[in-house]
Structures are given as C-alpha cells and as structure tokens.
C-alpha cells in the first residue's frame, strides 16, 4: 500500500501514454483532472491486488468516447460519482475500490481522480495492460466476467444502466449511448470481486506506468537516451527508427482507422515501415513483412525526447522510434487471440510473439 500524490501523476501519465500504444486519449486533461482531484480531496491510497479482500467489490471507472469531445466537453466531476452510486445501488453492495480498465492514456489517470473524489482506494491493476479500442477487449471477457451491469453518466445528470447477454453487445449499446450523450460518457462497468481479479487482472499496471514515466524523466535529466530507457524497462524490442512520410486516416465504423508510413533513419536507412491503427496501433510491417502485431504493444516515441505520440498526434515529418513490447500472457491464449489477435482486426496473419519476431 502506498499513497499517490500529485508528484506521481506526471510520471504515471507519461508511462500510461507509452502503454497506450497510440490510443487511450489525450493524457493532458486526464492529468489535470487527477491533480485537481488530489488537491481537493487528498492523496489516493494505492493497494496491490493482495491487499483487497476476496469478497470485496472492485469497479473500474473510465471515460468513453471521442478524444476530440473529451478535450472540449470536460467533465464536471459529478458524473462518475453518479455512475458509481447507480451501480452500487443496483448491485445492492457497496463498492470497495476503484481500478483502471485500460492502462493507456486517459483511462489510467481518470480512475485516480475518481478514487480521490469518492474516498476509495485504487487497485494497482487493470484489464488490458495497455489500451484497446473496444469495450469487450479486456481480460475479464477471457475469464467470463460480464461488463454489465454497466452504468453510464453524462454532465446533465443522466444515468443509464444496461444489462447485456455478452460483452460485444455491451460495446454496441454503450457506443451508441455515448454518442447520444454528446460523444463522451463516464462509465462504471466490469464489477468483479477481489477473488476474480486476483485471477484475471493484469497486475501492477499503475506502478509499472509510473516506473516507465520515471525512467524517461530521469533519462532526460541525466541526458541519457530516453528511448533506450523505455525499451529496457519494458523489455521491448526496437522495431524501427524513421520519419513519418505519409499519414492516411479515415473513419470506419466510428473509429479512426489509418496508416502511418515511415522512411528509415540511421541503421534503417533504405527501409520502410507501415503502421496500421484503429486509434491504437495494430500491426507494424517493415519492408512488407510483419514485425509486430496486436496483442503485443506497438509504441511510438519521439526519437529525441522519448515522448510517446498518440495516433491523433502523429504528423508528417515526425522522427520516431517504434518499439514492440510483449503483451500480458493472457492475451496469448486462444480466447485472448480471438478477442484481440490480428485476425479479429482483419489482418490475414497469425500472431507470433514479438520476442520471437525481433528477439
């Protein structure tokens, strides 16, 4: 158990953006919300999974919707409390702790502000170990934990509760409710007991994100190579170093799908890479051969500062390093790959772990 204070937030935000693999939303707003909440309500207690009782109920808090709306229509702070209260009321059980559902970008920091505001502890874990675009893409689904009952709340005071027959339906319904709410919603879902989480959750994600951020910060201070620092601490593999020479983005089915084309720099001179994304990076191909695919993490960092770059933030001319990081082992099971393997996203390639491809 330790306390999370303002000082930890910046490191956590940066590390979360690394794990966000290009998605997870803009961390700036999330960071500000967390800092404001801690200033107002005090530091947050961070518990390991072993410190929560088997029967205690843990509920993830998240923000769902379009990143563009999230930077315009900022929350008022009451929405997530409303979502939590509605869910607790329906379940007839108090909620003992909050957790992050996806450790990338905005949604690893949002739960901190929720925990601060509700005076609940935060559990050091998440449901992905990274970010993924669709609601059902969490380890809870692999272990048969339902996303619903799920509550959604907006700034106007509306709360909506949904119960579905499977998590794919949850994605469908919640996505359209999010649009009706104006393109963003605060949500509480995937309620699980301590016992269930001990089996299914990805452990230590908050601390891991903080470590990554701290490593980058120290590397910058000491004028060491921040990119190499990230690679080392994540056990990742450098897949490419290059300049963005073309970017194609289009809206398909409510997501921004696209490709980034890179021309190689330094030792990669003469080589080309294409990264495909659906908010998050999905596959990376070097000279037309797959070198990293989901569910492994494909993270894009600024070559000089090591700053992680989101797909919305990627621009022509950026000089970046692409790193492939091994995913949590649960994603490599058959059930895991059905949910988030390259074939689910429409790529005609079987998953091969990045350490085999690039090791």
């Amino acid at each position, binding site marked *: 158990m330790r306390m999370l204070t303002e000082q930890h937030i910046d490191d956590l935000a940066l590390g979360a953006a690394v794990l966000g693999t290009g998605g997870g939303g803009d961390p700036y*707003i999330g960071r500000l919300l967390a800092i404001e909440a801690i200033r107002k309500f005090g530091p947050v207690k961070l518990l390991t999974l072993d410190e929560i009782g088997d029967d205690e109920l843990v509920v993830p808090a998240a923000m769902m919707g*379009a990143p563009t709306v999230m930077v*315009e229509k900022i*929350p008022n702070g009451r929405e997530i409390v409303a979502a939590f209260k509605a869910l607790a009321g329906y379940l007839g059980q108090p909620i003992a702790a909050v957790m992050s559902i996806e450790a990338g970008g905005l949604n690893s920091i949002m739960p901190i502000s929720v925990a601060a505001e509700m005076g609940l502890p935060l559990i050091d874990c998440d449901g992905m170990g990274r970010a993924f675009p669709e609601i059902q893409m969490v380890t809870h689904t692999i272990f048969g934990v339902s996303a619903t009952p799920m509550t959604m709340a907006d700034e106007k005071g509306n709360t909506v509760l949904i119960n579905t027959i499977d998590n794919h339906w949850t994605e469908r319904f919640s996505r359209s409710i999010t649009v009706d709410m104006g393109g963003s919603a605060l949500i509480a879902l995937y309620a699980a007991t301590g016992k269930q989480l001990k089996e299914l959750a990805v452990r230590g994600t908050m601390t891991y994100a903080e470590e990554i951020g701290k490593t980058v910060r120290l590397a910058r201070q000491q004028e060491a190579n921040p990119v190499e620092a990230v690679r080392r601490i994540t056990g990742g593999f450098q897949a490419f170093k290059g300049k963005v020479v073309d970017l194609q983005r289009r809206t398909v089915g409510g997501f921004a799908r696209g490709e980034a084309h890179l021309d190689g720099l330094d030792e990669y001179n003469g080589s080309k890479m294409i990264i495909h994304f659906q908010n998050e990076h999905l596959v990376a191909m070097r000279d037309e051969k797959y070198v990293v695919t989901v569910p492994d993490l494909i993270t894009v960092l600024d070559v000089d500062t090591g700053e992680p770059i989101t797909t*919305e933030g990627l621009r022509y001319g950026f000089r970046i390093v692409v790193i492939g990081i091994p995913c949590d082992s649960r994603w490599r099971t058959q059930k895991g790959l059905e949910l988030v393997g390259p074939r689910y996203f429409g790529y005609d390639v079987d998953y091969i772990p990045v350490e085999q491809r690039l090791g």
Partner: protein
Amino acid sequence: MRIGIDVGGTNTDAVLMDSRTILGAVKTPTTPNVTDGIVTALQMLIEQTELNPANIMAVMLGTTHFTNAVVERLHLCPTAVIRIALPATEALPPMTDWPKDLRNAIGNHYFLVKGGYEFDGREIASFDSMEVRQVAKQILDRGITSVAISCVFSPINDEQEKQAAEIVRQVIPNAHVTLSSAIGRLGLLERENAAIINACLSEVAKRIVAGFEAALRQMNITAPFYLSQNDGTLMASAYAQEYPVLTFNSGPTNSMRGAAFLSGLKDALVIDVGGTTSDVGMLLNGFPRVASQAVDIGGVRSNFRMPDVYSFGLGGGSIVRTDPIKVGPQSVGYELTTKSMIFGGDVLTTTDVVVAAGFHNIGDQDRVQHIGKPLIEGVLDIIGEMVSISVDRMKTSAAPIPVVSVGGGSILIVRPINGASEIITPENHAVANAIGAAIAQVGGEVDRVFSLEAMSREEALNQAKAEAISKAVAAGADPATVEVVDVEEVPLAYLPGNATRIAIKAVGDLAMA
C-alpha cells in the same frame, strides 16, 4: 515602397523594399522600451537610402512586445473569464493549469454559466441571458473591463459567445471583449487560454500600437502599418490591437519567410543564427512547417498554428570555455560589440573564434591571433556538430536538402552540414526577419468540424475554402491574389455522421490602395 521592421531580443532590424528589391537595410540594438530602437532604425534607414517618407506605402512590424509582456507579467489588465459550458467542465475551471503568478497578475476572476454545444451543434444547455447579465454586473462591480468569453465547441457555433459579448457590452461601458471562437481552434482549455491572454493584453496592445504610430509620426511616415502574425501573415494595426496574442512567435516565422525570399527557394531548411540562440525550421511551399502539439505562450498551454522551430543555444555572442571546450549556452548577447575580444573586450566568443580562424574580418583581428589552432578546430567542430544535429532533427526525409542560413550569426556556419545539399547564405541574410515582415501576406483561417453525412466531402471543403478566402479578404488581401495554402483534414474518432475536422488557410498579397 515598404518598410519591414523586426524587433528581436538582441537587435532591431529595418529594411526598405520596393516590390521585390531591397533598397536599404539597417541594424541597431533593441532598446528596453523598444520604441526608441525602432525610431533609431528608421532614422538610420532614411539616412542610408535618402528616402522620402511620403513615398512609403506601408510599414510592417514583427515584434516580441506582447510575448515579453506576458513572460514578464508586466502591464497586464485585470481580466474576467466567462465560460459558457454548464453543466459541463466544472472539474477544470478557467486558468486551472496556469502559473500562479500569471493567474494572480490578472486577478483570477472567472465565471461559469449555462450553455455550450455538443460536437454536432446541439446545445448542452440553453443560454440564459439573465444569468450572464448578473455575471456582467459582478464584473462591472469589480472594476474590470477586459473580458474573455469561451464556450464548449464554439469553433462549431459562435452564437452563444456572441450573445454573451452583446450582454457584456450593454452592462459594462468600455468593455473590451475577446471571443475564443475568433482566435482559437478545437481544445477548450487551449482556446480559452489564448482568449484570456489576448484579453489581458488589451492595455498593452493599445499602448504599443499607439507607440508604433507615434514613432512613425515622429519620422513623418503616414503610411498604414501592420503587425506580423505567428503564422507569417500580416494584420492591420486595428486588428492587432484586438488580437495581440496572434503576434506571439512571429519572429521565427518572419526569418523563415525572409530566407525563402532571399534564397528563392520554397522548400528548404532555414537556420537563423542570432546573438544567443539559433532557430531551425522547415520551409514547405514558402511557409514554415507548423508545430502540431500544444505550444507554450508565457507558461500557458495553447494550440496556435505556430512554426515548428527547434531552438538551441548557439549564437554570435556565445561564450567559449576552453577547459574542456564548451560553446554556450551563455552569451554576451547584444553586448557583443563591447565584450568580445575582437571589439576590445575580454570574453572569448564564437565570433572571436571564426575571426581567428581567418573566415571573417571583423573588429580587430590582432586581438585574437593568440588563439591556438587546437582550440579553434575544437570550437568549430562543436559548432558544426550542433548545427548538423539540429538540421537533421528538422528534416522530413533522408534526402539532402538546401539549407538557407540567415541572421547576424550566420558567420558561424563555416563547416559543411550533414544532410545539406548546399548551404546558402544570401545577401542581406542578417536582416532576413525584417524582410520576412515586409513581404508578408495576409491570411484567413477556418478550423471546424463538418458532418460528411450532411454534405459531401467536396462541398465541405469548398465551403471551408470559400470562408477562409473571404476571411483573408476581410483581413486586407487583394482578392485576385488569394489562394489556399493549407488544407488539413482529420476524421474524428468514435463520432458518427462521418464527422471530420477541416482546417483551411488562405493567403493573399496585401491590397495596396
């Protein structure tokens, strides 16, 4: 004939141009009150060219005045912020992420009222005139006349901001109002910040513009004058008084545009070596490539279209240390002509080294003869590496590219640059900034969200382009010269109706009446 003036951190430069010909160029140290340096520069220019002030058609000014006022927290107005957004946004009120001293410098006055828009134009809540009227009364009671108004998704619909402004003007005599939708893009906090900074500069803007007018009058110059915007286009002095925040970072933009003009190249890398720092930027189609991440103005986060410039601590006044050999970042700055060795001082600077190496004949060469070859080579190596690394950072492909070197410190570029196909140091390179100001064009910008289900992509683009073009004309452009220079399309994730954000910039030559 036109005069271009650049008020930099170290020097104030002025050039006289007739169409595309440079008739005269002068450089004088920037003075603390800035206006004096401008008057001196104009006097020098008139003497040099024997120019008759009556023949000047326009004066263009690039200045760091407004940036400095914010950075130094000087002469800023108490400002009230009205954010139209309830029931949304309360978790992050206005000025949440501001440096404390800047917030306090303007009084930390803010009000949230009902309203705002969803991404598709629906209202979040109805605008409440009574509520805004009461807020305006409170602002009046506090003795504030400078007001910034922001609203959720106002780039899509500025109606509520305009309604609020109307009420504020009714309640507060002499109110000076800035609407966020007039100057900012998507991103509430960044846009609101820009509006607040703009509002708090209203007194400074009035004073500075009046000061420039006085300087010109003193020199018997009756021509209208324009200020450079951060994107390289001009705005009329009246517009600059309304939107001083748009002048931030116009310096690097002007030096790049000047470099494009002097070299005749539209696509090149530009390095502007000053007295203390160097800026490297990329020219694409004659305009600097813009930075896309958030930019910092005075410690406050914003998202203007600013040039993507990489700055590093190398200049003509950079101090050289000998054991171990180190160049900068400390610099003698504008005191070069008294402190460096070639000018009789006792500080070893980069300029001293290039003179000792025999590359340039400036000041008294004898005073640097004692500098040993190993030291000279070591310093030149370091300079060469600093430049090469910075150039490589900004290149957009591995292919070699021309590098245009401008600024008074260009004399330091004596080694080849890795990745440069050629290094061009054009004539008049030392006053490239002032030239950039003189040749600047006027522009109009549109940055909005369109639903491509309501109209075709072509219709949306045409609508946006037409709007940008008419904005350019409204800013003073000659309609016959206006063309669209930048089109940016970003599909919006997770939103239906095929929502796309389209940003268009149209630019034209200043219509000279």
